[in-house]
Structures are given as C-alpha cells and as structure tokens.
C-alpha cells in the first residue's frame, strides 16, 4: 500500500497536467517508505509516449538523496493518451525494486487517474493508495 499526502498528489497531478501532452516524470524522496519531498524531473525525451530522466539531473538528485539518507520512495510518470497502467516499456526499464511506481493518466481533461504499482522482475502488482491530509 502507498500512503501519500494529498498535497503531494496535487503536485504530481499539476506537473502531469502542465506537461500534457508530453509525459511528465519525477520522484518523491523520503525515508522509511514515507514519501516527503517532491522532485519534478525533466523528461529528457520530451515525448507523449516515452520518458527518461536526464542523466545529469538524475545524478544530482540521487546524490542529494544519498546525502539526506533518502530514497526514491515514489517514481511517477504520466500517460497522456492511455490508462494509468504500466506499459511494457515501463516494466522493461523498472529498476528501483523498492519504489512505488505511480502512474497518472491525463487522457481525460476533467478527471485524473492516479494509481500505484510495484514492478519487480517483470511482474506488475497494483497496490492500494491511501490519501492522507
């Protein structure tokens, strides 16, 4: 289960809406499985069908997390024309076994789908999301 504050959810959704129709991506850093610090990342691909963190930005952010004893608790990205479910490419490149992979879909103008998954060894497991104030 992913427990996440409404404030962080709003920030993720706002980022996804702002970058639509391109995919948006980023990290919520935290400790002990608690997502705390919102870190929007640049989508180096600037694409409606693909995302990739910029490699230099990733190094900087990963070092910063290391220095603060944080980990990427959540790795999020948006789908802009399809449902909020991991694509085959998402599964192929999933490389953080401990992260919650959050998918947001902005295909509907008025409603945003927000779902979370574990992706491990090629297997997708959806998990419940608990929104807290």
């Amino acid at each position, binding site marked *: 289960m992913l427990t996440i504050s409404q404030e962080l959810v709003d920030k993720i959704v706002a980022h996804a809406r702002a970058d639509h129709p391109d995919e948006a991506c980023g990290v919520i850093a935290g400790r002990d499985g608690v997502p705390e610090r919102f870190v929007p990342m640049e989508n180096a691909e600037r694409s409606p069908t693909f995302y990739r963190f910029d*490699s230099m930005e990733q190094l900087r952010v990963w070092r910063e997390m290391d220095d603060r004893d944080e980990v990427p608790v959540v790795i999020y990205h948006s789908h802009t024309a399809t449902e909020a479910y991991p694509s085959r490419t998402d599964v192929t490149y999933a490389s953080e076994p401990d992260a919650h992979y959050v998918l947001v879909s902005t295909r509907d103008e008025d409603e945003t789908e927000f779902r979370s998954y574990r992706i491990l060894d090629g297997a997708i497991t959806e998990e419940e999301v608990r929104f807290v104030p």
Partner: protein
Amino acid sequence: MAIEVRIPTILRTYTAGAKAVDAEGATLDELISNLESLHPGIKDRLVDQGNLRRFVNVYLNDEDVRFLGGLGTPVSDGDTVTVLPAVAGG
C-alpha cells in the same frame, strides 16, 4: 589506492549488498572486467555486445561517460565511478 564504484540497489545482489566496492583498471572497460572477476555476473548488467547498455548510466566523478569516451574512458586511482540505472519508460 583503487577506484570506488558505487552500486545501485538493483545490482547489490552481485556485491553481497555493498553500496560501494573497489576495483582497478586504466579504462572503464578494464575496470568493469576487474569488477566482473570480483563480482561475477555484474558485467552483463552493464555491457551488451561491447557497448554500455543503453539504459544504464555510468558516471566518472561528475560526468556521464557517454560524454567522455564510453568504455574507453581512462580512469585512475581516486576516481569514483557511479552506476545508476536510467529511470525510463513509456
């Protein structure tokens, strides 16, 4: 002295859980071969058909080695090599 290689979570199964290990070599290619002899299996996760895997980022100190010389990048004692799997998808 040696070269410190920082290992991401997903590859720590090869290093008995260690976050960083030491290795030696004059180039990144040699360093990875030395790493393989110490931690068998790890090379295949970094290199594919003689090139760095496309979705693995390798940094020499503060630079992405793709912008240096790839596997031919010279390395020396005291350097830090950081491996980070690219965060990507569709």
